[in-house]
């Protein structure tokens, strides 16, 4: 009888140990899930509807976009001065399409770098087209005028000296419906998208992508 009691008590101990191990594994798993959730919450923006991350820097901004490798779709938009601007106007040049918005704080950090890089590489045949994704009231002329003036003012305050085009939503589908800003596509002299950045990246990453578009980078 005594032996049997020892055996049962021993079995119960074994079960307890196994449960403790299962509990620990469960806790670790839940912690991992919580971390993943937190990470996913941060990344939807940088990930958007784009593919996975590529290599580069601290992992932010440098992404692999399904648009890379495709020919850049031509478009015609109106700039803040009312002038029609088409991508095809820049045939033979390397072009960065920078999708931004006045309400986007990371865009405001990136823009001064773009202004500098545009100056630096302009002579080599590089152009930037800023494409604003600010909402526009197309049916109300007075509001549209005021909204356009706000975008122009913001661009001016940021020192932008390249064309700023309105109504980015009109060309969004052609460029994979980017869900976050800033997003940039780097188009080479042949009109092919050779790189993309999604979210704020470093000035060095931007410069590398510009070099790729110019055909002088890796």
């Amino acid at each position, binding site marked *: 009888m005594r032996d*049997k009691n020892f055996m*049962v008590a021993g079995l119960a101990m074994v079960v307890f140990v196994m449960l403790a191990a299962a509990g620990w594994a469960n806790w670790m798993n839940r912690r991992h899930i919580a971390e993943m*959730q937190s990470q996913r919450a*941060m990344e939807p923006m940088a990930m958007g509807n784009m593919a996975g991350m590529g290599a580069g820097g601290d992992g932010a901004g440098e992404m692999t976009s399904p648009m890379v490798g495709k020919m850049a779709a031509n478009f015609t938009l109106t700039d803040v001065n009312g002038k029609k601007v088409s991508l095809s106007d820049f045939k033979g040049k390397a072009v960065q399409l920078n999708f931004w918005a006045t309400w986007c*704080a990371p865009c405001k950090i990136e823009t001064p770098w773009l202004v500098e890089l545009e100056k630096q590489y302009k002579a080599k045949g590089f152009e930037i087209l800023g494409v604003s994704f600010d909402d526009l009231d197309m049916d109300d002329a007075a509001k549209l005028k005021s909204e356009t003036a706000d975008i122009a003012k913001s661009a001016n305050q940021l020192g932008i000296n390249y064309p700023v085009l309105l109504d980015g939503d009109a060309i969004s589908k052609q460029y994979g419906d980017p869900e976050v800003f800033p997003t940039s596509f780097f188009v080479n002299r042949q009109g092919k998208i050779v790189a993309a950045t999604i979210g704020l990246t470093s000035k060095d990453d931007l410069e590398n992508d510009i070099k790729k578009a110019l055909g002088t980078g890796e």
Partner: protein
Amino acid sequence: MIRWLSVKWLGMNSLSLKLMSVALALATLAGQQNPFANLWNDAGKKSGAKPTDAVRYMYPEQVTVTAGKATPVEMHFEVKAGLHINSHVPKTKDMIPTTIAFPADGSVKLDEVEFPAGKDFLLPVAGAPGGGDHLSVYTGEFTVRGMMTATRGEHLVQAKLRYQACDNRACMPPHTIPVVMDVTAR
């Protein structure tokens, strides 16, 4: 039956039986919390949640007020970890404020709306001295207060919270979520 079999066949005393019972109960509980279950995916599928839903309305889902009399209500929201949204009073005009709107039919109104003060925030960006503009933001949970007035009866209210969310490196366009609650006015 199990107890009878155990006692009869194994000759256990009551202490051993209790130990075994506790172990079995814990084993059942552990089985329910399968450490290898993919809880995140299940929850995501069930809720139909999209990753771009940066803000979630938490509660209340039901509100009872006195008909025709302004009653204080608190609406609780949660901003996903790692994200921030502009407060109701951003520091600059170009930032889009968080706002709430109730249906215009007048059956349920929210007056004297009070948003919490935003937290001062600076984007932590290496290579950008100063990190850009100071922002006024909400993170984590925040509460919107107001005085609710409703006409007598049951109302399914679908208010709207508009916000614009970012993380430290990117921003999403402005987005609106429904704020749904059953309002009973007696």
